């Protein structure tokens, strides 16, 4: 049996595509992130590490 004949009629089409799966995963949790991934332009994002001594590899702050 070919795979095509096995899958024929199972109503699969696009549903096995990773992009569809990813979308379904995220929507199932009622989440709608504004960006697909956290990639930024430029190195300085104003976070605690960017604004620290450039030699520091880790910056940690206590919060309440």
């Amino acid at each position: 049996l070919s795979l095509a004949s096995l899958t024929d009629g199972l109503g699969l089409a696009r549903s096995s595509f990773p992009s569809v799966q990813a979308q379904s995963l995220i929507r199932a949790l009622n989440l709608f992130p504004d960006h697909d991934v956290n990639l930024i332009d430029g190195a300085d994002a104003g976070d605690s590490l960017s604004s620290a001594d450039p030699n520091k590899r880790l910056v940690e702050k206590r919060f309440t």
Partner: protein
Amino acid sequence: MPNLADSGVSVEDLGHHAGYYKIEHSYAAKMFYLFFESRGSKKDPVVIWLTGGPGCSSELAVFYENGPFSIADNLSLVWNQYGWDQASNLLYVDQPTGTGFSYSSDKRDIRHNEYGVSNDLYDFLQAFFAEHPNLAKNDFYITGESYAGHYIPAFAARVHRGNKAKEGIHINLKGFAIGNGLTDPAIQYKAYTDYALDMGIITKTDYERINKVVGPCEVAIKLCGTDGTVSCMASYFVCNIIFSSIIARAGNINYYDIRKQCVGSLCYDFSNLEKFLNQKSVRASLGVGDIEFVSCSHTVYQAMLLDWMRNLEVGIPTLLEDGVKLLVYAGEYDLICNWLGNSRWVHAMEWSGQKEFVASPEVPFLVDDSEAGVLKSHGPLSFLKVHNAGHMVPMDQPKAALEMLKRWTQGTLSETVAEPEKLVAQM
């Protein structure tokens, strides 16, 4: 935190930290993490939690599973009396790069496999323990769920390898726990139809028809092995036909918890997470600057496509032989990473104690004198089927999940005698 007074601690007592780490072997990646000191003792073990997806942020678990607090409808925080920080110094990391508040300015930092993911986590741990040398001697445990069934064995093996090679700071790795995880796809994909039939999600006719894809799926996964590339992508497409076919027949079923239906396309409502973490005051508190919060990343999910069907079970026997504990647990109503598939790979795993583990009896896992699950264990290996829970065990059964963590880290998980009886026995 409106119910802080009930928690028995004051704000000043809470050691809550947020930080960024510049990933060493990257172009420009920075990893965000949250660290909650134990509400018990500083000597409690250090536990790291990894959220799956792949591509979902660790904050999902912080606020909806086992973190110190959850988010109320008015976006205030409510104390979680069963947070895992009751028994551990608890770490959550947004990983792989690109999820949550972890970010990079260079797209080459997006990870495609467990080699990249585990090295980033290992580098982070080294930096974390350098920052907290007082915690470096504590017992260390790796935990997580779902796709973390891939991350966890790879990360545990990386830590173990680093320790053996005397790289950097010695990490006192005592165990790793996988909750409703995807670890050995060949076995777990084959189990989908059996679980679905057992649970009445599909008919016998559906079962026989869908099972015709199992053979090609197995062949494709075999070709993928532990380090395949194109064959792994092919097996993703072939094998997901099994899962998609079941879902197509099951209607609006919530595949994380088959007792529930999904309303529209929504199975859960975690939307307060995005609302809460995008507030200016919260962002300022966490020190995330201009970085947006990406709750789950499409791109990271797709970047891990070649990794999906790889078998991560292969690295586990070495860890067991060296005395590192493994707990595999699974909520009984999850379909996507169901208990049956997990139980089968755990039983099929070849290690020196396999025969004894297979022969070991199932015993009740008692919490408050009622059966919260069924446990099998031998030596360093334990398998726990958790009752009345879906994919997210700490969300569905918070008390049982905390009890599981406590007993497992304290080495008393397989002691089946209920607490009062134990006291009488000791008297």
